[in-house]
């Protein structure tokens, strides 16, 4: 009886005493931002939700080689490459501007990316939302066909929304609707506006490597003859200040209009291009 009474009287105090110290820490739980859904600014071709940190500059050099099906003569495409060089800069941790130049179509681009909603842990948004807009200028010499063209006719634009959820530390998934607008198209059956719906993912193999993929489905159907959906698969390798992205894709152009709306190749026909992106980050302004 005494023992029982003792236990009853003592137990609340004992447990209260232990829990309380931990309770103090428990009370402070605040929602935290989910970071690093992807490693680089691009999943492969398409934008990921990642931007440069404030004051950071990212130099991206990317190549897409020739067709793998070209065989030994072109060393499976390695003999000829398309290149894109880009510079991105983080104005804040969530707003980034960039410029780039591609050999493909001698295209110059300017872009703006804004991750305006963060995914939160412990209350808040379940996804992050990132807007991306890019203006592209075709730089090829105009054909002398008697048709008058102005500077604006060289321009095309892509706007997209990157909806991302990092499901686990290993797996992130993005859904990416895009709108492509071309001021001038060179074929009568080619619409000025094309929209696509894309998905992209990352699966981390370990702390430094991940498998990435993306697929863009052209809307609306039926699509222009000879064009196909873009499918890319790749591997991200991170080594301190660099991220190396190696991949195989059926899209050779590295700016949005080209790979979203103007992909002529098909995987099943062997129209595959090996390529890489190398991302190198510099801190040009220390801000914290």
């Amino acid at each position, binding site marked *: *009886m*005494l023992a029982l*009474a*003792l236990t009853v*009287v*003592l137990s609340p*105090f004992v447990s*209260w*005493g232990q829990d*309380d*110290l931990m309770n*103090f*820490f428990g009370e*402070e739980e605040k929602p*935290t*931002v*989910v*970071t*690093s859904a992807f490693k680089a600014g691009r999943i492969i071709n398409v934008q990921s939700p990642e931007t*440069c*940190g*404030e*004051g*950071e500059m990212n130099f991206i050099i990317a190549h897409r080689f020739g067709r793998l099906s070209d065989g030994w003569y072109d060393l499976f495409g390695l003999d000829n490459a398309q290149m894109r060089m880009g510079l991105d800069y*983080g104005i804040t*941790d969530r707003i980034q501007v960039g410029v780039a130049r591609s050999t493909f179509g001698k295209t110059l681009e300017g872009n703006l990316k804004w991750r305006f909603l963060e995914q939160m842990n412990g209350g808040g948004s379940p996804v992050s939302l990132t807007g991306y807009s890019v203006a592209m200028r075709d730089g090829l010499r105009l054909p002398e066909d008697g048709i008058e063209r102005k500077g604006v006719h060289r321009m095309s634009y892509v706007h997209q929304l990157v909806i991302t959820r990092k499901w686990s*530390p290993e797996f992130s998934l993005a859904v990416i609707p895009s709108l492509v607008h071309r001021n001038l198209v060179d074929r009568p059956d080619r619409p000025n506006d094309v929209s696509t719906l894309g998905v992209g993912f990352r699966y981390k193999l370990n*702390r*430094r490597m991940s498998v990435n993929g993306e697929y863009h489905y052209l809307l609306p159907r039926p699509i222009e003859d000879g064009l196909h959906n873009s499918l890319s698969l790749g591997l991200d390798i*991170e*080594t*301190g*200040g660099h991220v190396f992205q190696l991949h195989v894709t059926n899209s050779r152009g590295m700016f949005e209009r080209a790979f979203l709306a103007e992909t002529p190749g098909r995987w099943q026909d062997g129209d595959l291009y090996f390529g890489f992106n190398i991302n190198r*980050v510099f*801190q040009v302004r*220390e801000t*914290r």
Partner: protein
Amino acid sequence: MRNFTLLLTLCMWASAGHAQRFVTRDAQISFLSETPLEDIQAESLAASAIFDMATGELAFQAPILSFHFPKALMEEHFNENYMESEQFPKASFRGVVAGLVPDKEGEQMVTVTGTLDMHGVAKERAIEGTMTRDGEWWIVASQFEVACEDHDIDIPKVVSENIAEIIGVTLRAELKLK
């Protein structure tokens, strides 16, 4: 019997009333990795600490995501590659203070023996520091070292010249009577 229970309850109440707790939510913890090539420093101003004067228990907890670096990329690597902060969001230390004279004003050297839990690995540690009583405040300060290896924090060879194997930690907390 009833009297005994009453007495016991009173005793417990009395001791519970004595349990003076000092707390803070904005303790400052910084660390420094020094190598000939590069010094890397980070700081958190969001650690919590609690000190129970009755039991001598002292506990700290720091959210790993609250450590900020001068460069965004360092912070990303810290969270993603080294601390794996999504899996192990907090570092904590819980120990018992030895050598403290509770009512003495001024600085006192103390040793706190307990468990340092970081990156999912708990280590028994005896950490030296100072505690200073100032009315209803306790100022706790310490400098100690943490070996990455002790907590399974793997530093690959490529960056071993940039990141120190032994990290110096500096801590300062002003705990107020709750």
